[in-house]
């Protein structure tokens, strides 16, 4: 509504009379729009009207015994009328508009979205090879060609698209999903122990169990062999399936320094400025931009753009350097952090179906290091499938041959 009023133009009128509200009544009766009609003060009222009724307004006011004075004209027609007298300004304005329009046909800003876990640098390089680069003329861009080129270059991308808004190119990518592992039923595997422990339960669904409950096993020891046995003889190699549960013991240790270095800003802060035109940079300072020791450098880039409308190839860069001193302070809550990290590692080792029977946590401090040790007794599934080696397969085959003979 405001934009429409600005384009068509509007005026601010001051109506004076015994009853200025009658002027509003007349406007309403004639179906004439008005807005921002302030209540009369000292028999004077202000009201806004469309510019096309500028000539009619005084006559209408007179018809209801009031006097109308046009206080100010607003909007585009008024602006044009003012600028018409200043040709240089008008030419400058038109040139600026032309520059913005021309500039909006080139890409000045590229943003990549949805590239979590992907190499953005590789995507940018591939986009540049496909023609999508800073300063590229975007009207001849072909989505299909860009997509095909980038997907071929970066095989970890499943899908992508390039949306151009003004001079801003938004590249949306979707990463490739890993294909689900397919179990090869013809592959011969045996079940071995992932960790040492005392076996509590053996469930051999397929294959021959080589351990029994109460037996101690070491990591890597075979628990269920990939051999199918008949009543009297070995029948052949198979894919072993089963679970073996056991009591296991873990001793996990984590270390962390008792003190830590903490930054304290000294309050000294310097700013340096630079301007980037397209790909060229102009520094408004001497020397290099490498930060000295014990200082943070914060770079803020201000693009000359209106979000979603246009982006110009001009970027104002502000480099803020903040000095700090490094102090050594005792670390807070380190023991709890280490304990929780060890608990997390233990949960990973035990697995979802495992349980912790007992645990004991100790902490010692030596040479400026805090050492936390977690000793636990657990109950978990320790069997994991491992493919048979060629030598193991040959052994099984020789066993079959021996039984046949």
């Amino acid at each position, binding site marked *: 509504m405001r934009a429409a009023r600005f384009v068509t133009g509007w005026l601010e009128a001051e109506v004076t009379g015994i009853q*200025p*509200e*009658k002027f*509003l*009544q007349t*406007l*309403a*009766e004639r*179906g004439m729009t*008005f*807005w921002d*009609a*302030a*209540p*009369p003060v000292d028999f004077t*009222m202000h009201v806004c009207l469309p510019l096309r009724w500028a000539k009619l307004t005084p006559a209408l006011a007179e018809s209801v015994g009031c006097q109308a004075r046009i206080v100010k004209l607003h909007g585009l027609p008024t602006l044009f009328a003012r600028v018409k007298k200043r040709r240089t300004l008008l030419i400058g304005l038109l040139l600026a508009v032309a520059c913005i329009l021309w500039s909006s046909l080139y890409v000045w800003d590229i943003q990549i979205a949805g590239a979590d876990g992907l190499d953005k640098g590789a995507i940018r390089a591939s986009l540049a090879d496909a023609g999508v680069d800073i300063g590229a003329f975007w009207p001849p861009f072909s989505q299909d060609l860009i997509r095909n080129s980038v997907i071929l270059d970066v095989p970890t991308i499943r899908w992508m698209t390039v949306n151009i808004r003004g001079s801003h190119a938004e590249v949306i990518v979707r990463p490739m999903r890993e294909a689900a592992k397919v179990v090869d039923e013809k592959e011969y595997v045996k079940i071995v122990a992932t960790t040492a422990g005392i076996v509590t339960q053996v469930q051999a669904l397929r294959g021959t169990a080589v351990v029994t409950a109460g037996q101690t096993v070491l990591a890597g020891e075979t628990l269920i062999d990939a051999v199918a046995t008949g009543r009297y003889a070995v029948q052949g190699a198979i894919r072993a399936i089963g679970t073996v549960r056991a009591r296991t013991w873990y001793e996990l240790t984590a270390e962390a320094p008792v003190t830590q270095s903490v930054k304290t800003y000294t309050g000294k802060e310097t700013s340096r400025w630079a301007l980037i035109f397209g790909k060229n940079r102009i520094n408004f300072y001497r020397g290099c931009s490498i930060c000295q020791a014990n200082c943070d450098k914060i770079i803020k880039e201000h693009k000359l753009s209106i979000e979603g409308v246009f982006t110009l190839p001009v970027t104002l860069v502000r480099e803020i350097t903040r000095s700090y001193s490094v102090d050594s302070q005792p670390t807070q809550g380190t023991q709890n952090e280490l304990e929780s990290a060890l608990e997390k590692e233990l949960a990973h080792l035990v697995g979802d179906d495992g349980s912790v029977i007992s645990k004991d946590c100790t902490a010692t401090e030596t040479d400026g290091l805090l050492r936390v040790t977690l000793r636990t007794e657990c109950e978990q599934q320790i069997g994991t499938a491992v493919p048979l080696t060629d030598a193991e397969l040959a052994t099984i085959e020789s066993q079959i041959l021996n039984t046949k003979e």
Partner: protein
Amino acid sequence: MGKEESVSARMSRKFEIQQEAVSAVPRITVSGMTSVLVEGHRGLLEYEPERVAAAAGAGGKVIIRGENLRLVSMSRSDLTISGKLWAVELE
């Protein structure tokens, strides 16, 4: 005028339709204590920050009292007032 009104009132009662649909009686809608819409008014009589009055049919008046009252929009038949409303009176 009175006869016409009674006829319209009778019609609206008989045909079970809203009276403002068959006669020019004002309809006042107050929303949220900050805005009031008067439909079917007969002209703006008073306009002050604390009091706005509009003519209704049959010599009646709709008076809106409040604080910082402003005329948001006005057409031949409708007017919208905004501000802190205290009362809507009928005379």
